[in-house]
């Protein structure tokens, strides 16, 4: 209704200006005023221009400006990067003061898309935006955590409480077999950036490009989606802020196992004491975070932001944690009457970590609960360390594992991102960007001479072993990564006619990547004291040392372009194309083409429905790619066999083929169709969007088995088949109560997943790929997952458990409806991927109080509880060695040896109260030293509702690195933890 009026009046207005300007009938008016930010502080550097003219100025350090306009029909446009611009008609006013706010209404919100920005209303593909206010709060140590559960279709998971463990990020499930399944990261325009170079505190907003319509402009790296991070920018009058928090984190769920008394009663070996090994290796961990940020600007077109972030995190396992300092500096400089704009962002991070050893949790579950913490009994004091050790398979004292051995690392990252943009003519801009990232990683492990466990180091090709067997064993690892990005981008934005706005982008992108590193391992030290000095390791003299090194690199080159049309803010069309080549493709397929087209129409503007503010229907189709996961996969390669050959009485090196050639190797091609509806109803009280997508990934990359002969080796990287993926995503937000002193907003996001391995190539037809095995000890050949042609991804595979017979032996389905004791018949016994996921946020404001709580759930996935699969048996030969996992499924009548079956597959559905925050904003008078203070208390992982008996029902996206093997709860998972955080945000 009022839209028509508005548009009508604007039409008249612009017409009038045109007339006036053309006729030079100028009756000039002087306007002045002050711009403030949303905290009522002066806002310098805001650009103020007279609409449709080149006449403009910027606000000074006090936020003040003055400008002369031709007449009272003029319109002033106030704009600042990262803020939506405001237009104000001059009319009879001579003073115009206003406040610019980054928190904006949904429709005018700025959405960062590939190589540009759009207003929310213009977006024609599936793009989600999460602003700083919506980020998860509390004990946040990773950027991914900010988003967990916030975006429909974006799954972020980290089972267990390892402070040095990474998060798995999946957008719309899985759309790849062998390529990178994590989304592409873009930070402030830098493609392929590293999330770990940014501190979560420095982030302004995160945009997620979900469909191929929006991601196709990123070509060969767009298939798993794109996450675009925008960091906080300077601009206001010298602002200083401090954010600090203290967190206490406690283990709340261990793998259930027998107590000392139960263990003894069940026939376990009694060593005389009562020990809870999980308690012995865990603690109440304390962490603190401090962030100081400065920002400001000068009237001369300079704005800056600088921040220092310090994080100190303890792990709940003893002797684990990290210490991290990150600094970020961002500078913007305008020149040549604002036609030239330079930006520079530099960040540096140093993180030193105590990783500990994940195996300690496995040992804590199975180690004899009657063993004392320390011993002097020579029968138990096996290595003389004073810890009880016994010679069972994969069995060691968990306390000794963490207390005796060191596994520490230092990770350093620096990132430089610089750009220069020149406005050649009005609306036409040319940008040059250069960025580089440097990452170094040093990890040192030392197992002292009395350290018993043989499986703490697992370097491929080395002898490995324990500190005890190797008389002290040291390993040093160094890795270095270096990438450079260079881009030229030409962009054009023009209102072609009264109703039609055109914007276009074209560019060239070059990126190279270089990695190198080495591992050294040696033992036989006279004393543990000199463990950092390899010269004191006798292994070098005895030919028992191990060394390896690597260096590799790759290049990406691309040309891209996009055209956007906006017809009268009613209809929108966007089309893009990227042509991209990579050194990692086979010689016959170096270049790929990635097109996309999308369109949207605001039905709310076409039909006048009283309760509709906007109702946009949009559809997109696009093609994205995925790169082979490593360089050189298309080449025929030779490498040393590892063994030397006795030739004329001396040993000489032997070389053999290590990889089959595939000159046809190409990108995975994902074609995606997305149809969506964005709506804003009842005075924007109810907002949301609904998406349906259908993806087809063809030319799936996989390291497939090939016949020998004719192939020299039995694996080859090939494009092997088609994956189909459909889903529905719904985001709903509702202002339940909206009044001055009290408000309640509730929002829900919901997403469904269905991923199928639709087809395999002719040579693999009817077959399966990606099988994984349960693992060591003793189950290295026990297949538990596979991906089968025509079936959903995530299949758990094995015999179907049907009970036990009178001897306590397992009975399995034999495939004909009867039972047998062998378990030779194997079939689908579950699926590791969820069918739907849910996030539910509630935000309350009452006067100065705010309360936010957030539930998150995944439903329909199954989990192989490997703790049970390995350690549930109380059969006499087993309980003599291992403590028993005794969940509700524990059945002492079972007398069979370990046999994997559906008995160990559990429903993983859960809902968690993931995060709850209560905050209070203190009032301060204007002009005081302190401009703002907020204090909050936060709880994370407050409760979980699930049937799963393991420590954490989170979706497991891979097992041993195999992404086709989701749904396996590995035994190195840390315990589940709960944390409470007390924090303040202070502004000066």
């Amino acid at each position, binding site marked *: 209704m009022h839209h028509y009026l508005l548009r009508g009046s604007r039409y008249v207005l612009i017409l009038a200006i045109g007339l006036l300007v053309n006729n030079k009938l100028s009756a000039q008016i002087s306007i002045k005023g002050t711009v403030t930010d949303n905290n009522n502080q002066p806002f310098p550097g805001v650009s103020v221009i007279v609409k449709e003219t080149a006449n403009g100025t910027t606000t000074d350090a006090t936020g003040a400006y003055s400008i002369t306009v031709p007449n009272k029909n003029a319109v002033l446009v106030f704009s600042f990067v990262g803020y939506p611009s405001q237009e104000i008609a001059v009319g009879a006013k001579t003073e115009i003061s206003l406040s610019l706010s980054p928190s904006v209404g949904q429709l005018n919100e700025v959405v960062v898309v590939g190589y540009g920005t759009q207003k929310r209303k213009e977006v024609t593909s599936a793009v989600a935006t999460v602003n700083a206010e919506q980020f998860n709060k509390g004990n946040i140590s990773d950027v991914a955590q900010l988003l967990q559960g916030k975006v429909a279709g974006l799954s972020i998971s980290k089972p267990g409480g390892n402070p040095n463990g990474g998060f798995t990020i999946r957008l719309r499930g899985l759309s790849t077999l062998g390529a990178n399944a994590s989304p592409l990261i873009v930070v402030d325009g830098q493609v392929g950036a590293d999330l770990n170079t940014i501190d979560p505190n420095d982030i302004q907003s995160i945009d997620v490009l979900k469909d191929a319509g929006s991601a196709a402009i990123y070509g060969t790296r767009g298939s798993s989606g794109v996450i675009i991070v925008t960091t906080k920018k300077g601009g206001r009058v010298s602002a200083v802020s401090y954010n600090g928090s203290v967190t206490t984190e406690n283990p709340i769920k261990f793998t259930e196992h027998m107590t000392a008394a139960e263990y003894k009663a069940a026939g376990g070996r009694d060593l005389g004491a009562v020990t809870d090994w999980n308690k012995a290796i865990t603690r109440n961990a304390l962490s603190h975070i401090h962030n100081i940020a400065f920002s400001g600007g000068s009237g001369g077109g300079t704005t800056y932001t600088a921040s220092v972030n310090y994080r100190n995190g303890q792990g709940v396992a003893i002797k684990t944690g990290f210490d991290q300092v990150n600094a970020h500096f961002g500078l913007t400089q305008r020149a040549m009457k604002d036609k030239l704009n330079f930006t520079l962002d530099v960040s540096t991070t140093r993180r030193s970590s105590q990783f500990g050893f994940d195996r300690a949790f496995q040992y804590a579950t199975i180690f004899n609960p009657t063993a004392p913490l320390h011993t002097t009994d020579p029968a138990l004091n096996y290595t003389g360390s004073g810890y009880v050790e016994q010679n069972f398979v994969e069995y060691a004292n968990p306390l000794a594992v963490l207390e005796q051995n060191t596994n520490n690392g230092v990770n350093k990252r620096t990132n430089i991102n610089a750009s220069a943009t020149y406005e050649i003519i009005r609306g036409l801009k040319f940008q040059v960007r250069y960025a580089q990232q440097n990452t170094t990683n040093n990890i040192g492990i030392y197992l002292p001479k009395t350290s018993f466990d043989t499986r703490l180091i697992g370097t491929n090709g080395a002898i490995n072993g324990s500190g005890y067997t190797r008389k002290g064993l040291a390993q040093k690892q160094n890795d270095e990564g270096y990438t450079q990005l260079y881009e030229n981008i030409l962009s054009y934005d023009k209102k072609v006619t009264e109703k039609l706005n055109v914007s276009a982008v074209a560019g060239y992108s070059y990126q190279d990547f270089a990695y190198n590193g080495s591992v050294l391992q040696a033992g036989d030290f006279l004393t543990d004291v000199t463990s950092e000095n390899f010269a004191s390791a006798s292994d070098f003299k005895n030919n028992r040392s191990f060394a390896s090194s690597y260096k590799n690199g790759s290049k990406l080159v691309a040309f891209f372009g996009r055209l956007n049309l906006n017809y009268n803010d009613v209809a929108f069309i966007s089309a893009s194309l990227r042509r991209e080549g990579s050194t990692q493709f086979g010689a016959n397929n170096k270049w790929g083409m990635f097109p996309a087209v999308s369109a949207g129409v605001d039905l709310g503007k076409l039909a006048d429905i009283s309760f509709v503010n906007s109702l946009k229907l949009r559809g997109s189709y696009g093609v994205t790619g995925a790169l082979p996961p490593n360089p050189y996969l298309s080449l025929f390669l030779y490498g040393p066999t590892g063994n030397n050959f006795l030739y004329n009485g001396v040993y000489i*090196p032997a070389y053999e083929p290590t990889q089959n050639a595939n000159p046809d190797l190409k990108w995975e091609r994902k074609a995606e169709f997305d149809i969506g509806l964005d709506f804003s109803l009842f005075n924007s009280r109810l907002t949301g969007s609904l998406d349906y997508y259908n993806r087809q990934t063809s030319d799936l990359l996989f390291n497939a088995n090939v016949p*020998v002969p004719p192939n020299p080796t039995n694996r080859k990287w090939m494009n092997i088949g088609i994956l189909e993926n459909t889903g529905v995503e719904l985001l709903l937000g509702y202002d339940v109560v909206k009044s001055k002193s009290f408000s309640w907003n509730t929002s829900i996001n919901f997403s469904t997943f269905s991923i199928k391995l639709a087809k395999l190539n002719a040579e693999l037809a009817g077959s399966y790929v990606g099988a994984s095995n349960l693992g060591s*000890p003793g189950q290295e*050949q026990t297949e538990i997952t596979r991906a089968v042609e025509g079936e959903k991804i995530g299949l758990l595979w094995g015999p179907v458990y049907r009970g036990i017979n009178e001897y306590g032996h397992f009975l399995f389905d034999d495939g004909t409806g009867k039972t047998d004791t062998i378990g030779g018949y194997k079939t689908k016994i579950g699926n590791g991927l969820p069918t739907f996921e849910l996030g539910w946020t509630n935000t309350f404001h009452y006067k100065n109080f705010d309360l936010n709580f957030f539930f998150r759930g995944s439903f329909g996935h199954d989990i192989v509880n490997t703790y049970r699969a390995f350690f549930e048996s109380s059969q006499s030969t087993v309980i003599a060695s291992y403590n028993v996992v005794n969940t509700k499924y524990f059945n002492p009548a079972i007398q069979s040896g*370990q046999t994997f079956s559906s008995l160990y597959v559990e429903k993983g559905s859960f809902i968690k109260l993931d995060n709850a925050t209560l905050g209070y904003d203190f009032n301060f008078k204007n002009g005081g030293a302190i401009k703002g203070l907020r204090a909050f208390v936060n709880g994370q992982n407050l409760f979980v509702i699930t049937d799963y008996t393991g420590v954490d029902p989170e979706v497991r996206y891979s097992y041993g690195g195999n992404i086709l093997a989701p749904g396996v709860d590995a035994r190195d998972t840390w315990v589940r933890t709960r944390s409470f955080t007390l924090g303040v945000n202070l502004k000066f």
Partner: protein
Amino acid sequence: MKISSFVKCSLVGIVLMSSCTKLDETELLYDRASNLNFGVTDAEVVSLLAAAYTNLYGSFGGDGSIMRVEEVPTDEIVVPTRGPDWGDGGHWVRLKLHTYLPNDAGPENTWNFLFKGVNSCNRVLSILEPIGTPASLKFISEIKALRAIYYYWLVDLFGNVPISTDFAKTDPPPNNTRKEVYDFIEKELLEVLPDLQKTGPNDNETYGRVNYYTAQAVLAKLYLNAEIFSGTAQWDKAIAACDDIINSGKFALTANYSDNFKKDNKGSTEFIWVIPYDEVQATGFSLPHMTLHMESQETYKMGGQPWNGWASVQEFYNSYIDPAQNPGPQGTVVGLDPKGTPIQGTTDKRLSNFLVGPQLKSDGATPLTDGAADVTDPDGPQIHFTPYVNELQPGAWRQSGARIGKWEFYKGMTGQLSNDLALFRYADILLTKAEAQARKANNWNDPAALALVNQIRTVHGGVTPYSTMTATSFLGERGREMFFESTRRQDQIRFGTYNAAFRFHPADADTHVNIFPIPASQLNANKNLKQNPGY
């Protein structure tokens, strides 16, 4: 180079220079060799030839090796499930029960190992054949012989395998019949024989490599099994091949049986072809890991922890100590009861093939104990290796089973032995000739055969010569001599006992299990391959 290309492309990227869109990956190859830049120099060619051999090192003497399918299904070895250990999805048990599946690791790895060897040979041949110098021709014959030996194991284990001789041919090949494969091996070996060197075990140049006598030994074994492989017996040919070796004068039985297996056994007069293992340079003989108890680590001051798996069984051990089966001097030996109580029995010198009885720490005096010993094991915590194995699965005692002590275990070993491993040994040739003679004469008391067997009994075993012999007593003697040298499966098949009932193995329903299934992964990947009958 990278920097300059980057600078160049940055500066002129706008102009779209072709050099900035060049995506040749071999320019970025720093730590690996590709077919474009490798195989050029003599040393590189020899390194490729070397790989055709070293492929064997890692694939013959280890836990997951060819030895696994040669030994575990027979009556001389068992890998029992010891509580939580050695279950491995049941594939060890399936080997024992002859219920192996096409996707079991045993057949799968063995196929890959052997065809990798065949392919290595084909690749080396494709490089050598165009050269045409005398030195290259000599290599060609040697590599063709090596390829024929890989096929000798393939025809034995899988039977109907594809014959692949052309490295450039990339079509997935179909099966050949077992007879065709047999004919191919015979033809190839006979063709190259004249070009191979007639060197003995002390010749440095060919030690560890295939020479004339290696080819003759393979022919002898091929002919010995010709009836199984091709349907037609070839006793005369077998005898002729053996005679060629015996009459060369290059080989002789060692006075001490165990000299063939000690750490420094290089150049033993019985070695026709060996893998020259070395704990640093040439690893893969991981017998200490496979057979020793975890606690034995202390006894030998090992650099790694053993896995307590492979062992022999009571009946096989008994064939050494039972005076009826093996007449000879009597003395105290470890007995067959669950405690391994010493009894009177034959003291065959070849009992050094086993580690049995109480175990001691490295000081040679203190008893070795296992704090984690099975409570039901009557030996108690002091470690006794007993020939008695209580059950195949799931609860075999940690200390049960006579351990494989044939190759000398030495203090400070890593778990990878330095002892060379004979693939073809002179004693085997003597027994091959004896068997061929007896079978040709259709008389196990054929004097020539009896003399050969008794030569081995007296020199190696120090036991009483047989006065008469039967098929059973011959097989018993072959077993004692050739224990754990990967001949037992072949021998049991030839003597018809492979499919009979023996310890932990009920009788097979039929003989399809005498060759292994073709691996499922190969059938998946190669539609031209057909599975062996019965699987």
